[in-house]
């Protein structure tokens, strides 16, 4: 992974000093609440229901074991002994004291971490595929490009006060696990017919209040011009994006208002000025950054298909876990393992300090000391030897990471919701837990198969409810919490947005509602269909009839 040099380190240290002084001035009354707000937000610090919440950046989800240990340490020293993995692959602390945040940032800087631009109206953490660099279907490793974008976007002077937040995702795979179609900018690394590397650029996708799939504005931007092109997009947005209404301020509204074609022309005009200027990327820089993402010291191994099949036969639990939580690896004899943070009874994405330390140990022991966070709020050991899978499974079980539910109904994406978040209209974690409890029979879960269930506590859509096969949105009706259900959303290629089923439900009705939806699927499905396929074939009506019929 990327290792800071003196320049990178200096920047995070300067930031700690700057934020320490800003916080001092706030407490001294030299900065008002309103003035301090955007400053602390750009450092990931929200003031929430119970306490400030600090969002720590994990660039494109990559963490080293020493960083995990530092996080564990910080949660012990400054928080309540646990952390939360977010849908932007960051790490969130729910209970730090405001006056301690400068010290926390200083500790983070000591392991090359920070909280820069994890919130506020600026360019946020760039995300990518959790299996980047190891996926079998990958054609271009997106990680060096993510790092190049990270550096360009870090304290970019022109884009420090954008109309609204701005999210970029990069994909380099046949499948799209980075959900690039629902980002402000989605980049797909591709080769053109001449074999040259470049990027297909999508703009104006996003969830939130006005969910929309992004439009392609350039089929191929040569890699040398990536930053110049991004700078052109951001400049057009910074100048012409709406600032009069927070809910109309995302770039998707501007792209829609201008039409993607006109927006693309504006960007091209801007780019004509920047193209071939100093912002042009150099071969040397791409090589310098790429060197940090070369293969680790893999052993020459062969795939263990037979041995693993034998273990499967002997240990059904292992077989189940392997079928859901283990994926193929580009290197023979290796596998990528997802640690489920979705055990029933634990808030989705939460991880304790003990678990963080344990994961760090496992990373050292099994996966070249690295871990990845996923936007589904799980963690990944990306380079595990297949011959060690069984022993790893036994350790994971002991520590609560082996729930074999990756991609299943109980692998719920869920925002912190009304229990923690000041923006939320409704709680989300108790709804997730009630559904997980209803569907805790593994045989049944496996029979239901692939299903994305996403829950957001408000229409800011941090829980990505629009792109869940089943999406749940917390809404406020005259001071009471209700839940709106949508069906048919999906991320990945051919992303689609869910359609609202009908009137919303009370919290305690939710497990029943989900059960009825699943019943319809089970009755209607053909053998090879997943939930989303059946939905696409039969439409929403049968689901609607079942759910609302019984309410009468």
């Amino acid at each position: 992974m990327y290792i800071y040099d003196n320049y990178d380190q200096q920047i995070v240290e300067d930031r700690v000093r700057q934020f320490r002084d800003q916080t001092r001035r706030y407490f001294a009354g030299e900065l008002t609440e309103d003035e301090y707000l955007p400053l602390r937000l750009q450092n990931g610090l929200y003031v929430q229901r119970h306490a400030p919440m600090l969002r720590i950046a994990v660039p494109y989800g990559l963490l080293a074991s020493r960083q995990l240990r530092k996080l564990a340490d910080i949660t012990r020293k400054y928080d309540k002994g646990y952390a939360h993995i977010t849908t932007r692959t960051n790490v969130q602390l729910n209970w730090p004291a405001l006056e301690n945040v400068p010290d926390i940032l200083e500790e983070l800087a000591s392991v090359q971490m920070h909280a820069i631009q994890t919130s506020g109206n600026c360019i946020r953490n760039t995300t990518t595929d959790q299996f980047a660099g190891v996926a079998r279907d990958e054609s271009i490793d997106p990680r060096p490009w993510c790092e190049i974008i990270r550096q360009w976007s870090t304290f970019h002077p022109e884009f420090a006060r954008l109309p609204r937040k701005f999210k970029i995702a990069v994909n380099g795979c046949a499948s799209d696990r980075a959900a690039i179609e629902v980002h402000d900018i989605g980049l797909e690394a591709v080769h053109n017919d001449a074999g040259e590397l470049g990027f297909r650029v999508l703009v104006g996708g996003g969830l939130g209040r006005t969910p929309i799939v992004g439009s392609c504005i350039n089929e191929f931007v040569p890699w040398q011009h990536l930053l110049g092109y991004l700078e052109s997009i951001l400049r057009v947005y910074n100048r012409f994006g709406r600032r009069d209404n927070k809910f109309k301020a995302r770039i998707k509204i501007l792209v829609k208002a201008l039409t993607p074609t006109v927006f693309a022309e504006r960007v091209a005009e801007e780019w004509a000025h920047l193209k071939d200027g100093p912002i042009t990327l150099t071969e040397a820089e791409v090589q310098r950054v790429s060197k940090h993402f070369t293969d680790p010291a893999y052993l020459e191994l062969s795939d263990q298909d037979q041995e693993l099949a034998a273990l499967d036969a002997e240990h059904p639990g292992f077989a189940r876990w392997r079928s859901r939580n283990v994926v193929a690896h580009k290197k023979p004899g290796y596998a990528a393992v997802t640690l489920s943070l979705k055990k029933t009874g634990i808030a989705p994405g939460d991880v304790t300090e003990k678990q963080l330390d344990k994961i760090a140990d496992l990373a050292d022991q099994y996966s070249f000391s690295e871990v990845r966070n996923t936007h589904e709020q799980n963690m990944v050991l990306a380079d595990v030897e297949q011959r060690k899978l069984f022993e790893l499974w036994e350790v994971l079980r002991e520590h609560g990471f082996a729930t074999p539910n990756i991609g299943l109904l109980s692998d719920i994406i869920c925002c912190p919701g009304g229990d923690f978040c000041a923006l939320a209209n409704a709680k989300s974690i108790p709804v997730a837990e009630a559904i997980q409890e209803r569907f805790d029979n593994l045989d049944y879960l496996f029979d239901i198969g692939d299903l994305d269930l996403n829950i957001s506590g408000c229409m800011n859509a941090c829980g990505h409810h629009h792109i869940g096969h089943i999406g749940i949105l917390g809404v406020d009706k005259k001071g009471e919490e209700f839940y709106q259900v949508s069906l048919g959303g999906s991320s990945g290629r051919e992303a689609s947005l869910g359609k609202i089923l009908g009137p919303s439900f009370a919290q305690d009705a939710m497990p029943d509602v989900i059960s009825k939806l699943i019943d319809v699927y089970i009755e209607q499905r053909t053998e090879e269909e997943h939930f989303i396929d059946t939905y696409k074939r039969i439409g929403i009506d049968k689901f609607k009839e079942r759910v609302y019929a019984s309410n009468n």
Partner: protein
Amino acid sequence: MRAIIKNDQVIDDQWTLLSAEADLDEALRTEQAIIPFALWQEHKSQLQAVKPLGVWLESNQAVEDLAEDLAYFSVVALNFPVFTDGRHFSSARLLRERYAYTGEIRAIGDVARDQLFFMQRCGFDAYAIRADRCPVDALQSLTDFSVTYQAAYDQSLPLYRRRTA
């Protein structure tokens, strides 16, 4: 006379900022006036001979519309109605980098310390700090960071063209 930051120092301001309602008379009788852009557009022919002259833009006014007239102005002031409105960060870069404007670019309006580092990178060289804040204190913000990644007005090369191993 109001104190402003100019070229990294606190000095007494020699200029008078005219409000958006100012008329031609006021512009002609004020020495070293910074006039609203709309007034310039309306009375360009009468104002062309006035020297020195400054102009200021609202945050929704585009520098492109001023570009051909830049030679008339010793000061271009860019107004921040609220400090969270970042449009003029782009305006300043365009004035410097695209239109090669070498006069003063001044930040006016809701301008306070914590924007200054970014502003200077974009090409501002003068800051009328909000009246209730101390410009001397604000000077410190100009050195918030000792390293920057991007090319901008203050640094023509991005770090990746400057890094030494």
